[in-house]
């Protein structure tokens, strides 16, 4: 019996060694270098993971005392799931990027620290002044700043100039200019109808793709363009019951189900490939799709502001940097160094050139390589210009649950399974229920 006991205790000892070994290692290393785990996300089609890894390498080379390990976590949903799980199980990444609407959830799980003290140390308003101020709106809560803008975008309208030229006569006969993109919903509908090419029951070219996957985000633009809002700023009341939302839903229903100028449900990552392959005359997509289209499209294309109804309007989008709460202070300091590096004028400009995202740091726009790039590709500066008309994206506690409801109902309507009225009813009631719970 004693032997058995001895054996069991030995086994436990060995096992605990395995479990705690990693942690011991981590604290030993603090003397020399600080190791940071960085969870990041790629939210659009394309090979952006390699770009991030490259930037992290550059950071590691230039900072001897800090070693950042980048961990690719998939799309925005996957990444948030991983971050949530890691934080709540007590093993958070040191620094991470998640979608901006998740801020309240991050605060709810008490996972992040405010960045104000770091910002103050680095010059306060002078520091934040480098960045487009509209991008901080989604990072603010309770009078503090909790995130640092990084991969930020607005959804824009891409249009295929060659297809517009091909249908120039028809467009002109309707009084539409074939050399520019539509500027209003009314025009959008007309352009899309003319530009859709059908062969029997088969559609060869879609007039304008309203993509699935992030249709909630694109749809939010339409609500702003119609003068409405989705959730009140205090995240307590649903705005889905308004006439503005119903009109926007009806317009989407018309484009997808009555006129059939947009496919009912195109996967998010498939949409830019459709456009680049010439299967769509226009598409709504994140500005992060630019490099892929530039690389693959063998036609002339341009980007434009999203058409307006009563006003121009888009929600900002993308992801911000956050620093975890339950990590050693030296890791938090190191994480801030890393964030500053990644959003410095040089890095922001490089990131913008390679990813198509907005060059969040205004100083980056003055760099010579950025200037010559923007001269060559004027399309690349449009998303930043559109910021003039931007709103902060909807934010609410447990945004994932709201987003799921939102997307599922939009999908069902786009597929013709429920009317705009039913969709509105379900969203309004469902969203209010979720908001009431917190």
């Amino acid at each position: 019996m004693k032997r058995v006991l001895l054996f069991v205790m030995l086994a436990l000892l060995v096992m605990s060694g395995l479990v705690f070994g990693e942690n011991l290692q981590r604290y030993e290393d603090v003397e020399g270098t600080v190791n940071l785990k960085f969870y990041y996300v790629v939210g659009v089609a394309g090979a952006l993971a390699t770009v991030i890894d490259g930037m992290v390498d550059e950071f590691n080379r230039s900072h001897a005392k800090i070693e950042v390990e980048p961990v690719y976590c998939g799309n925005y949903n996957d990444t948030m799931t991983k971050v949530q799980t890691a934080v709540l199980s007590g093993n958070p990444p040191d620094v991470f990027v998640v979608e901006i609407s998740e801020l309240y959830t991050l605060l709810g799980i008490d996972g992040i620290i405010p960045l104000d003290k770091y910002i103050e140390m680095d010059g306060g308003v002078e520091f934040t002044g480098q960045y487009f101020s509209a991008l901080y709106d989604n990072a603010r809560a309770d009078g503090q700043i909790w995130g640092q803008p990084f991969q930020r975008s607005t959804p824009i309208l891409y249009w295929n100039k060659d297809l517009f030229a091909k249908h120039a006569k028809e467009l002109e006969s309707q009084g539409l200019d074939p050399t520019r993109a539509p500027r209003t919903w009314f025009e959008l509908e007309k352009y899309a109808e003319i530009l859709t090419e059908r062969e029997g029951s088969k559609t060869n070219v879609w007039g304008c793709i309203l993509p699935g996957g992030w249709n909630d985000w694109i749809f939010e633009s339409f609500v702003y363009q119609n003068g409405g809002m989705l959730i009140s700023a205090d995240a307590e009341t649903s705005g889905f019951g308004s006439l503005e939302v119903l009109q926007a839903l009806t317009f989407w229903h018309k484009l997808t189900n009555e006129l059939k100028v947009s496919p009912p449900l195109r996967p998010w990552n498939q949409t830019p490939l459709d456009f680049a392959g010439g299967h769509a005359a226009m598409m709504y997509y994140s500005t992060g799709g630019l490099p892929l289209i530039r690389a693959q499209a063998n036609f002339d294309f341009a980007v434009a502001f999203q058409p307006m109804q009563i006003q121009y309007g888009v929600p900002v989008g993308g992801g911000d940097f956050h620093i975890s709460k339950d990590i050693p202070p030296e890791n938090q300091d190191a994480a801030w160094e890393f964030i500053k590096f990644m959003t410095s004028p040089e890095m922001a400009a490089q990131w913008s050139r390679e990813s198509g995202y907005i060059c969040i740091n205004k100083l980056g726009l003055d760099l010579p390589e950025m200037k010559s790039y923007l001269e060559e590709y004027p399309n690349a500066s449009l998303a930043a210009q559109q910021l003039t008309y931007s709103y902060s994206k909807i934010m609410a506690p447990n945004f994932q649950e709201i987003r799921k409801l939102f997307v599922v109902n939009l999908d069902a309507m786009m597929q013709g399974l429920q009317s705009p009225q039913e969709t509105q009813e379900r969203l309004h009631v469902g969203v209010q229920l979720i908001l009431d719970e917190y």
Partner: protein
Amino acid sequence: MLVVVSNTTVEFCHHACLVLSDGLSYSKLHGGGVTTVYKTKRRYLTIFICLLPSLVFLGIFTYYPIVDALHLSLYKSNAFTPQPIFQWFDNYVRFFGNPIFWEVVTNNVIFAVGTIFPTMLLALFFAILVNEVKLKSPFRLALFYPLLVPYAAAAMVWVFMYDPSLGPINKLLGIFGIHSIGWLGDQRYSLLAIMLMTVWKNVGYYMLIYLAGLQNVPAELYDAARTDGANWFLKHLHVTLPLLGPSTLFVFVVSIIQSFKVFTQIYLMTEGGPGYSSNVLIYYTYEYAFKFWQLGRASALTSIMILILLFLVLIVFGVFGRRITYQAG
């Protein structure tokens, strides 16, 4: 953790089956009071000691989490309530009043019925065929290989197979004049698409079990059947099928369990969508647990699943377990 709980739930049922069926055969073999009380006691002690290590692991990784999940399902517990609030059966009541929950349950039932029976029939059919043809190994290999492909890889292959424009399935259907079925992107077909893939993936495994069972069927019985003038179909109906009873019971129970464990292909191919059209209980639980971090809700779902599975497995053993012929003759 909750998926682990759900999975271990399933494992638990699996163990229950094995222990039960062991018990059955044990009592059959050793029944009749031949052994003395002393010997019986000693034998049970030996068995108990041998089973002890797995009991410990089951206790830690299965029974404790089950009890914990049942307990947590009575609380409001999510990311925003650090201190769980006791609320009786509120989580259950909310689900029972939620049409989406019932849609998910219905999907799971459709999935179970629609995969278990085709899989079993096909597996039996292929096993008999493979047993009778001359060149056994190439056929066995062909039917068995889907099992060797990891689920994740198989799912990606099928995503391509189902692609509306590039996929071979739609190209094939195009020859017959059927166009553009959006297999995974269409509410009407997404669940069917997952079911087809699952049947393809599992048939080989069950075929192998049946094939093993077939080896135990004495050849004399077939000779006797032939003498009686039975044709191929009758021979298998009256000789093979009854003698494959234990294999069938095993296959049936395991496939019931499998049909509630279906996760990888749904996670990778449809994420339960479009809408909730291909969402099943375990994926729904995953969403509540890891996406929405609604631990109380997710525990309630887990508990519901535990009850459903226990109920099903008990029925199967109650109804079929007694009628199984364990030995020829």
